[in-house]
């Protein structure tokens, strides 16, 4: 089997889900990469839990400010029209249904769209952060993750075995191997990464996948 997509290419595929005028929240980890690939001419407002609307990309050396960080504590730059607000207003935007899209990382996603992304069974402490608020408030939830764990176990599972973040909340999952939509009938395989076959994806996915009639290679 050919190697799957790099993290950058997964983020690049996620960018295609953005539309002009959307208010978008990017989760910590892989999703923060998305901010690096948004085209200049696409006006999307990025929201950060810690009270920013309208940040741009990750800041370069020389333009970093300790008071200006995204939810992953990375230094960011502002776009014209940005605003600041306190944490309760920030989560009013999330919980109140004002965020069009959130892109989150995950440990596991089930065929019902359950999400587990805040704690592994090995971790004692864990960190829920804003993920539970985001999955219940954002209009659409996209998960970006590696298709399997480091030890090769599927992350797309029949039932999540890790602590849940939310039930039935995920809309689509983009991995290094495929784009899968969560439907009432289970997981629908819509796109495969270049050089990856349906059989490759199924072999590394726990539940049975339904193959979309217009299955195609992922465009990047």
């Amino acid at each position, binding site marked *: 089997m050919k190697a799957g997509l790099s993290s950058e290419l997964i983020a690049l595929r996620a960018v295609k889900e953005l539309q002009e005028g959307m208010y978008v929240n990017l989760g910590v980890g892989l999703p923060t990469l998305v901010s690096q690939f948004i085209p200049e001419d696409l006006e999307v407002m990025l929201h950060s839990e810690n009270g920013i609307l309208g940040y741009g990309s990750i800041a370069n050396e020389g333009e970093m400010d300790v*008071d200006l960080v995204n939810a*992953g*504590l990375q230094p960011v730059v502002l776009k014209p029209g940005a605003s600041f607000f306190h944490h309760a207003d920030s989560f009013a935007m999330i919980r109140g249904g004002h965020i069009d899209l959130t892109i989150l990382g995950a440990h596991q996603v089930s065929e019902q769209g359950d999400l587990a992304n805040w704690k592994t069974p090995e971790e004692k402490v864990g960190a829920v952060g804003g993920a*539970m608020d985001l999955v219940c408030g954002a209009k659409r939830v996209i998960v970006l993750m590696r298709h399997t764990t480091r030890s090769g176990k599927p992350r797309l599972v029949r039932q999540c075995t890790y602590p849940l973040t939310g039930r039935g909340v995920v809309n689509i999952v983009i991995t290094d191997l495929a784009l899968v939509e969560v439907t009432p009938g289970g997981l629908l395989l819509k796109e495969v990464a270049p050089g990856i076959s349906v059989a490759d994806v199924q072999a590394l996915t726990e539940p049975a996948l339904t193959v979309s009639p217009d299955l195609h290679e992922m465009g990047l």
Partner: protein
Amino acid sequence: MVNKVVANIGEVVGDIPDGASVMIGGFGQAGTPFNLVQALVKQGARDLVIISNSISQVAPLVENNRVKKLIASFPVWVDRTRPNPLEEEWGAVELEMVPQGTLAERIRAGGAGVAAFYVPTGVGTSMEQGKGKITFDGKECLLELALKADVALVKAYKGDRLGNLIYRMSARNYNPLMAMAGNLTIAEVEEVVDVGQLDPEAIVTPGIFVDRVVKAPKHVEWVYRKN
């Protein structure tokens, strides 16, 4: 003349007793009152109940065994390889994990005299345990209780002798909420300005919520992970 400015950082936290509940503002390094936290460590109060977002605010207190209970949302380092005193001495501190938006709203409610509220956050997860439920707008919701504290330690950009505060960029985060929810609110500021210098249109925390103001040097240490 009203003057909430205290010159000495040790004096400003001097009367925080053992067993006090203490809110600490900040998100990573942004808006964290590091000088007040250090002063509290030095002051020696023990068995504290700390309410804060993340590990950045409490690590020195946990490392010095001052914390009995921690109510937090993200009590790990973003860089998971960095040693976490909560993980290393697991069980020494009672931990209450709260979804971030619920934590912020519980603090706002505490400061606003609202006893409790219902939110859909956490339904179907371990956060449900022991909480009342209603259905609103077709969604199941959990009962969440307000949080108040004996003391709130906040960090602002500028403050005046009346306790009016403004913040800088994303360093605002929890600080205005905690300022409202503390019985005693202490603000660490980068700069004390004369009354009248802060634009009334721009004041975020009106002085009514603030009891003491202390000037302290800004910490410029980063807590972040590169891609």
